């Protein structure tokens, strides 16, 4: 189990959804939902703390692997996150992705928190900053309208993101005190 105390929140995204906490939980943990809003990824999660967490491309190869850190349906789902499916990305330290689900009036407040254990460069955080609004806007549309957003999600990450990842992998700043 990873030491979550070492992870600091870096990117937070909040959205309010007209749905029940149970529905939002299902949308986050059931591949029948994630394939429609999460860049086509199918989630595969062992439903327990310490269980395995993975995201798969539509062609079946793995994109993200991790471990379930908190499995508290329908309130909190947290997992470690290592991008293995892109060249060299697996050398970056894993991050922590936590979803908090709270009833709020007649809606549900969903808070996504991306946390890191090292001093991540701004340009690397831009990856999540650009991706999460697309993913979570799509989740909200899917639950509220039954249809995903028609975003073209095949675009490449921004060049400064790729450059920052390359630099970090070469210099490995997380290994220095």
């Amino acid at each position, binding site marked *: 189990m990873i030491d979550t105390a070492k992870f600091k929140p870096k990117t937070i995204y909040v959205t309010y959804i007209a749905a029940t906490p149970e529905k939002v939980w299902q949308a986050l943990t059931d591949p029948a939902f994630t394939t429609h809003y999460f860049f086509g990824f199918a989630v595969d999660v062992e439903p327990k703390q310490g269980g395995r967490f993975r995201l798969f491309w539509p062609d079946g190869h793995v994109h993200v692997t991790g471990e379930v850190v908190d499995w508290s349906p329908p309130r909190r789902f947290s997992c470690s996150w290592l991008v293995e499916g892109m060249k060299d990305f697996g050398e970056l330290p894993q991050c922590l992705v936590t979803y908090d689900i709270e009833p709020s009036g007649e809606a549900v407040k969903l808070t996504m928190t991306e946390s890191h254990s090292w001093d991540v460069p701004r340009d690397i955080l831009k990856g999540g900053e650009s991706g999460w609004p697309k993913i979570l806007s799509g989740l909200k549309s899917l639950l509220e309208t039954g*249809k995903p957003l028609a*975003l073209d999600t095949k675009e490449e990450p921004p060049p400064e993101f790729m450059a920052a990842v390359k630099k970090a992998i070469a210099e490995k700043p997380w290994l220095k005190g």
Partner: protein
Amino acid sequence: MGKPKFVYVTYIRTTPEKLWAALTDPRTIRKYWFGMTVECDWKPGSPWRLKFEDGRTADTGEILEADPPKRLVIGKWHNQFKPELNAAGMSRCTMEIEMVDYYPGFGRKAVKLMITHEAESEQGAPLIEAVSGGWPKVLSNLKSLLETGDVAFKG
């Protein structure tokens, strides 16, 4: 440290024109902004006023830029109902609307809305903290209203 700011992005199944109308029409604003409404003619240099349902002024400001249906900048945004937020000084809010790539086969367009709310000075941190809580509610409601005809969060 730079000036405190809050950035929020949401993607909405609509058109830039409909989104612009929703951002500037007082009757529509009232539906997704918890009964608040706006007085403004949306011309650069014009005053902008956000009002409570009972008519009290919540915030004042001035239109710095209005380029429909792409870009709206409200400057001199100043809270008028909470002393501690009034003391945090003025801020500037930029709303940018952009058509995004979408799958044409879906027959449904998608629009990116980016809100950047930035304090005019380093003393503006409490104000930016307050708007960081408010914008996700308002913009979640705006998205729901445009996509489903009803809001998500009724307050």
